[in-house]
């Protein structure tokens, strides 16, 4: 049996088809989840807290997808590339929800949550790059995360895969490492 929190969060994607981020309210979220405003206010501090929860849930889903796709891949650049493809495609598939999440990044609470999640990812990417002898692998992982997030925003605006952006990302993976 899912918790009230899960029920409210599960309603998020459906709510994106009805409301903009600015139109969102505790009453609308509660109603969209088949509950009421009180269920919302007893579970979340604010609409932004709810958005933060949606972001966490979205990133958890992406993480599961990435792990599944890369489970059998050997460590290294190919695995980073596969993970990146999975991340970017996952973002495109939930475009309406991503509209909310991208807009909400301007809010410090949501930005801080995203930063925390990014930090975990850049450490993972950094470990992959370390296996290929990259100098400063954690720093490179941090920059790669900034770039892939930007790539996801470019594709979000375009509403489709942007080949040049993905090729630019792969080029960094191929040429950004040890001096050639």
């Amino acid at each position: 049996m899912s918790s009230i929190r899960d029920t409210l969060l599960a309603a998020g994607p459906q709510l994106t088809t009805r409301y903009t981020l600015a139109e969102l309210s505790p009453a609308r979220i509660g109603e969209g989840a088949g509950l009421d405003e009180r269920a919302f206010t007893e579970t979340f501090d604010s609409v932004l807290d709810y958005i933060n929860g949606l972001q966490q849930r979205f990133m958890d889903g992406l993480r599961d997808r990435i792990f599944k796709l890369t489970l059998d891949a050997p460590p290294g650049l190919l695995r980073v590339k596969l993970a990146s493809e999975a991340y970017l495609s996952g973002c495109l598939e939930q475009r309406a929800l991503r509209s909310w999440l991208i807009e909400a990044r301007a809010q410090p609470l949501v930005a801080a949550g995203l930063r925390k999640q990014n930090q975990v990812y850049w450490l993972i990417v950094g470990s992959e790059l370390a296996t290929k002898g990259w100098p400063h692998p954690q720093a490179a992982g941090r920059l790669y995360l900034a770039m892939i997030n930007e790539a996801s925003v470019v594709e979000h605006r375009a509403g489709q895969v942007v080949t040049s952006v993905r090729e630019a990302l792969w080029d960094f993976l191929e040429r950004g490492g040890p001096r050639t």
Partner: protein
Amino acid sequence: MPSPSTASAPADPESQRRALLAAASRLVRQKPAEPLTPTRLCQEAGVSEAAFATNWPEALAFERQLLVSLLDEVRDSVAKTTLGMAPGLARLKLAVEAYLDANRARPAVRALALKLQADADGAATLRSRVAGFTLMMEMELQAMQWPHPAATARLFTAAVLETAYAEHEAGAKVPALRDCVFRYFDNGRA
């Protein structure tokens, strides 16, 4: 508390506005840890305290204008550093170094950017400056005949902004991040 000097104080609102912004720029660079109050600002600018409220009835309006003013300084610093250089890798690297150094010398840029990113006017200012930096980078990459110059410029602008953010957090240069940005371009095209 010393009274403001009014001996050579600018009288008209526009001159007062310029004097106050120049004073704010000096103060945030020289004493970044001290809060920028209207009283302190007016003393530094040598104008009466009423001049601040005349120009900016709300603190938010002042912060928006200070952000624009500081970003102008960053842009000018990059332009001055790279003046007369031919386009290409050396200019691109120098421009990035100058940008990061100018941001580091002005911690208020990042602090204001974080504060104003949820404000429509502040966000528009930030977007337009990021677009300007991206365009500059794209032109350099075009000159270097880099593949996908627009896409690469967009991604590396994000990387440079992340570096600026990290240096703001650290309160110091982060050479490992700068090295990662430059290494990719230094490795060149085989």
